């Protein structure tokens, strides 16, 4: 199988298998525009991110063989859980955000689903305050505004909330 070469923002070069490279909408567009022998430049992707992405791809292919779920097809529960079991613990929140951004930029749908699943699992059942910490966002509501929006969504607050 043909290999596609890419170069990340910090100058490192990687060789991707063609079928994997084609899963990235961004890389695919570049390939269609230029010759396949050229190196694709990815100025928005770090080398550590590329390493991770290749790791993810390999795992996804493994899971596909194991569960018989076609690559890119319905992202069923066991598939997501297995992925999560493998990668979740070693991924910090900040790294997860970076990867989410990168994978979105590269347009790799299957990885985006999996990473979003990881993020969603980390967010579940957290209080609004701990979400702010997790997401690294600013609390930009005035007390009146916050009261108003909580009133609006009062039905959303009847489930369990875990303090962290």
């Amino acid at each position: 199988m043909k290999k596609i070469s890419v170069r990340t923002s910090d100058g490192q070069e990687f060789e991707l298998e063609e079928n994997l490279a084609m899963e990235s909408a961004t890389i695919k567009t570049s390939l269609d525009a230029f010759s396949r022998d050229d190196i694709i430049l990815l100025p928005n992707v770090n080398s550590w991110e590329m390493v991770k992405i290749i790791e993810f791809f390999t795992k996804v292919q493994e899971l596909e063989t194991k569960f018989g779920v076609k690559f890119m097809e319905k992202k069923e529960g066991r598939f997501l859980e297995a992925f999560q079991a493998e990668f979740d613990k070693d991924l910090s929140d900040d790294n997860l955000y970076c990867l989410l951004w990168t994978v979105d930029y590269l347009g790799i749908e299957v990885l985006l689903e999996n990473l979003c699943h990881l993020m969603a699992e980390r967010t579940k059942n957290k209080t609004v305050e701990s979400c702010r910490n997790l997401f690294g966002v600013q609390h930009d509501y005035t007390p009146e505004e916050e009261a108003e929006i909580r009133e609006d969504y009062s039905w959303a607050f009847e489930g369990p909330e875990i303090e962290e």
Partner: protein
Amino acid sequence: MGLEAVGDLALHIILRKLGAEESGRAACVSKQLRASASEEPLWSHFCAQELHLSQPLDPHGNLAPSFKACYQSWRESFHMYPWSLVKRVKRCWGKITNWLTLNFPEAQSTLNKGASEADIQELEKTLKVKLPLPTRILYRFHDGQDLEDKNWRSSSRNGTLLGLIGGYSFYDRMVNVCLLPLHHIVLETKDIMETLDFSDYIVVAASTTHSQKLFFLNCTSGQLYVGTANLLLDGEMLPCVPNALLNSVHDRQQDAMLLWLEEHGRRLENGIIKLREQETMRSICQFPEEPPFCSTAVTSGVQVRCSSVFVPEFTNLQDTIQKYFFSYSIRMSLLPEGCSINGMTFNSCQLLSRHWVIRAGDVVVGNVNAEAVIGKYPLLRPGEPEFVYESCTPLPSLSGSIEGSFVFVPGRLADPKGRRFRVQAACFPLQLPDYIF
């Protein structure tokens, strides 16, 4: 980098996976998240997934200005109930109304819109009961059937045949069960309790015909009951839903009526029971149409299908011989190829006699060998609609079977074209069912 720097697509996927409640909470985190959590595609997804709505219809059936507003209106309207239970009831009604819209629209149009919380509280106060939560929600969606203008409880033998539950007919008895609206529940309950004097029971369903068949909901245990032949004498009733299923739920969520309607919806959806057309009147027929409860046999081109239905209102638990009562429906037809015997084909045949062996368990309790069926000698022609007749039999035990055969003559009785031949009626069960309708 934080969550807000992540792309819109990723945010949308994350919120979608989190679900409606979490998305609502996410909106309270920051203004940007509120923007992401307010997007229509997200709420359109939740409306579709949780409420099976492809259009933003609020609980009153009106179009809401957006999917988000629509979802919110449902949550607010039903905030007094566990949301998972609301979704379950909506699914149950959805299955039934989908089937009705496709197959029996005239019955669909008798379904009233939902009762209000005030209406339900009024009934509870008047009858001094507390309805189980699932039943309350059932009525919030649809307040029974409106049969006011259709000979409800009239002296007319036929009554109305638009009952949601349907029924059966045999000889001169016709049963068609409908769901009562709240104000009728009050009337019927007060009426029957003058004789029975049971507290905590309400009448929720009844046959609209002259034949009495009443379904009671016990508001404490949540179980649904149907009156037997001894109802007025002894208050005798049979449970309509398996007790084991019922007892697995607690906390005012015992839901026999919901389980009962869910089972009914399942049977309709899977074609286990179907519509019957009798003299241009259509009704839901409780005689099973599918194996294992409906048997089929073809002999010499004559097809015979048989199934039975349990008749609780004629069942008498205190009688040892004629305890359980069943009705059975026999449908016969001649296949398009015609009647073939020994290589010869005939384009008609006529019934002469019947032979039935009725068993209670393995013991033969009835052996009938007689002319005609319900006094008729049906003439069958190829490809014509089935000739259907119903009869009945009591049984000393709750489980048994019937099998038999018919003697037919090729051609007609008045003009036979060949020798008589026997057509099989394959064995079919008589069984006290786990769900009684």
